[in-house]
């Protein structure tokens, strides 16, 4: 029996482990993929206090070393369900059952997909969810970005420095992004806006070579080597949503102390319903959730 099981080894989950372990609790972190979470895709973090520049990989690795040296156990197994029993909680993976007095959910979010035909087929062959990761493969090519928020605009601006022409496709006529980004976008000559338009079809054989755009009831084809999809994130709530309260967007509802609707189950990081999803708020959640979990166990 563990004191606390943390699901997800991103910045929120690992910070929760740090605080729980320092409170002398027996802690297990379960991670489906690899430690770090989405932050490892960030090439340069510039807004974490004291770190003028640090790569997401270095940040995650430092935090990983910090907690494993303290004795936190991290196991690479995907959780398939959790159960709230009378005296303890159960966490089930494909091959094992783990027991704990408290659970902290820190599974984060995943990229939202367009959900159109051939999207999966062209991943890595034209379809990408990360311009800073894959942009350099498309030097001097024509590329498309779809989306209308901060991420989409940042990606279009980033790609405009590398690529020939960047088409920014958005289903509305206005962006819901920071004004500073909109101003920057409008000042760049090789970004072409395709507004009030949705993507209808992805074309190509071995790799993506064009996309069909539906706008004003008519279809246009844009020939392009890549489509960067930046239409938001989806909370990874599948294994919890039957017992944990979620909001209309799928994020886990909690009070200001990270308590979910079930006593002894806490939430931290991007999957938590909140207004700002940043590294600093993820680590903050982790500290808070762990402290509350420790209080719950000591009761």
């Amino acid at each position: 029996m563990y004191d606390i099981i943390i699901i997800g080894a991103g910045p929120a989950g690992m910070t929760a482990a740090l605080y729980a372990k320092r409170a002398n609790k027996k802690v297990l972190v379960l991670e489906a993929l690899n430690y770090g979470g989405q932050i490892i895709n960030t090439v340069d973090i510039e807004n974490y206090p004291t770190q003028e520049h640090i790569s997401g990989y270095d940040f995650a690795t430092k935090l990983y070393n910090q907690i494993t040296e303290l004795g936190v156990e991290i196991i690479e197994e995907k959780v398939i369900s959790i159960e709230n029993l009378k005296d303890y909680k159960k966490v089930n993976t494909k091959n094992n059952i783990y027991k704990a007095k408290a659970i902290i959910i820190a599974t984060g979010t995943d990229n939202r997909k367009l959900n159109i035909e051939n999207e999966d087929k062209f991943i890595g062959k034209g379809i990408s969810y990360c311009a800073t990761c894959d942009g350099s493969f498309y030097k001097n090519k024509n590329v498309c970005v779809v989306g209308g928020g901060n991420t989409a605009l940042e990606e279009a601006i980033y790609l405009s420095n590398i690529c020939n022409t960047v088409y920014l496709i958005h289903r509305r006529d206005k962006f819901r992004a920071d004004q500073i980004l909109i101003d920057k976008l409008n000042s760049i000559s090789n970004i072409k806006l395709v507004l009030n338009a949705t993507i209808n079809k992805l074309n190509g054989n071995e790799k993506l070579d064009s996309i069909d755009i539906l706008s004003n009831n008519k279809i246009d084809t844009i020939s392009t080597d890549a489509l960067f999809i930046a239409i938001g994130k989806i909370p990874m709530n599948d294994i919890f949503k039957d017992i944990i309260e979620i909001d209309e967007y799928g994020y886990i509802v909690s009070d200001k102390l990270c308590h979910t609707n079930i006593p002894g189950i806490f939430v931290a990081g991007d999957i938590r319903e909140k207004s700002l999803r940043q590294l600093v708020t993820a680590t903050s959640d982790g500290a808070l959730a762990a402290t509350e979990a420790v209080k719950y166990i000591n009761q």
Partner: protein
Amino acid sequence: MKIINVDEDNFNEEVINSKQKVLIDFNATWCGPCKMIGPVLEKIAEQNDNIKIVSIDVDNNQDLAKEYNVFSIPCLVVVKDGKEIKRNVGLISKNEIEELIGE
């Protein structure tokens, strides 16, 4: 076995003409997920003698990346008798890599 760094000069010798099955790890120094996969591949290389694992830096070997249609990394490609038989794009777990490699 250790992971072998491969470039355009020794690609044919180490990959195409290899008698063993080869797992190519296309990566770059700036790619976080690639850095995550690196140590996992090292472990797999140590534990398995039935596959050769080679690492290719896509920035220094753009022609090889192009030849294999690599447009996103990390990208793992399994090559047998000089031909691609499987690939995976994106970060995957140790178990999934072992599944990709197969028997």
